[in-house]
């Protein structure tokens, strides 16, 4: 016998299938017949090396139990409850929930059939920015320092870090594009010295009103925003590079 096995969601699904296939009355299921077929299906599944879940076995036991009780009931003369009662009620509810599932799937489902205007996504210019103060920036630095990987080996190394260079870097980055995310700016910064130099450079440019540091909503992205004010290289001459005169540096 070739059995074309449908995929069953579980034993109830299989029983409903068998009831429908045989056109049985769900309120008067011929238990021995359905048990027989149920077991045949399990057998076929096993032969196909399909894994039979425990709940299928549990149901098989339940069906056999009902079958026995039906036989006992036939022999006894007392009026007893139909042993199929619980199973029938379970099947009817399960059938109903399957219909509910079909009903739900037939609805106009959001993002399948019907769609919404997506939530607001404003462009950078229109976004409501909060300007950050130097003290906000200090807090931010603390945060970055915390996140920075601490080197496992400590090497004492004299690094030459130039604030002027950082200023030039920021100016260069903000000339083409008016804004640059702070994260992008300090990306790849390995040492604390470099980070401090960046912060000093930002502070200096903030003081000169050449840039603004802005943030959209608390904990949002921090952006460096170039103002309309002209950047004059002369300004660099006034910057004190850790005791050196920054302007004397050549690159």
């Amino acid at each position, binding site marked *: 016998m070739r059995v074309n096995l449908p995929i069953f969601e579980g034993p109830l699904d299989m029983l409903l299938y068998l009831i429908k296939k045989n056109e049985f009355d769900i*309120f008067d299921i011929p238990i021995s017949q359905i048990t027989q077929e149920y077991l045949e299906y399990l057998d076929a599944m096993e032969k196909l090396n399909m894994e039979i879940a425990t709940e299928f076995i549990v149901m098989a036991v339940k069906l056999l139990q009902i079958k026995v009780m039906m036989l006992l009931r036939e022999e006894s003369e007392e009026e007893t409850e139909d042993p199929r009662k619980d199973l029938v009620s379970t099947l*009817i509810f399960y*059938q109903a929930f*399957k219909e509910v599932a079909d009903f739900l799937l037939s609805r106009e*489902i959001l*993002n399948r059939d019907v769609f919404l205007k997506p939530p607001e996504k404003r462009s950078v210019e229109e976004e409501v920015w909060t300007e950050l103060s130097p003290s906000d920036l200090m807090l931010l630095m603390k945060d970055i320092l915390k996140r920075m990987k601490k080197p496992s080996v400590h090497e004492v190394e004299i690094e030459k870090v130039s604030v002027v260079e950082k200023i030039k870097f920021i100016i260069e980055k903000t000339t083409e594009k008016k804004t640059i995310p702070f994260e992008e700016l300090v990306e790849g910064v390995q040492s604390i010295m470099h980070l401090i130099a960046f912060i000093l450079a930002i502070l200096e440019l903030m003081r000169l009103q050449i840039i603004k540091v802005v943030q959209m909503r608390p904990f949002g992205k921090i952006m460096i925003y170039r103002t309309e004010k002209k950047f004059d290289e002369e300004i660099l001459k006034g910057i004190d590079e850790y005791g050196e005169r920054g302007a004397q540096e050549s690159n």
Partner: protein
Amino acid sequence: MNMEREELRKVIEGLIFVSDEPVNEKTFQKVFGDSIDLSTIRGILEELKLEYSSPLHGFELVEVAGGYQFRTKKELGEWIRKLEKFQPQRFSRSAMEVLSIIAYKQPVTRAEIEAMRGGIDSSGALKTLLLKKLIKISGRKHDAPGRPFTYSTTRKFLEVFGLKDLSDLPPIEEFMKREEGKEG
């Protein structure tokens, strides 16, 4: 504030338009205060619903999850789905079965759900539904051993399936009667 009805209609339309979520009566009351009574607002909402149901419009005003929202019409679906940003909702059969049971039996425990499905392990389906935010853990069943969690549907469930509220679901008997009808 004394507003002409026409003016009010425009404002209501605009309020719904800018909102990311269904706009409920409370929101309208908050915006208008006591100056405009609810029956006027309701009347206008009905008017707008009617107006947008016209075949001239690509979207309509629907009542969903206790509020009002503009949604595109179903017949536009095949076009809108061409836009990559919309990833279609997909539901497995088992997830839908579990969701259906929760919708009608909430708050309901996992064991109760599984019993109703003939003992099928439903943890995977529950997890999927929780991730999709269609259901939530709503509490615990105190009189059951181990005080298991109970599950209920969410507001998002109403939004996704376009239901005004839970009473918008047909009574479960209707689904049972249908079966009887088929048999007879």
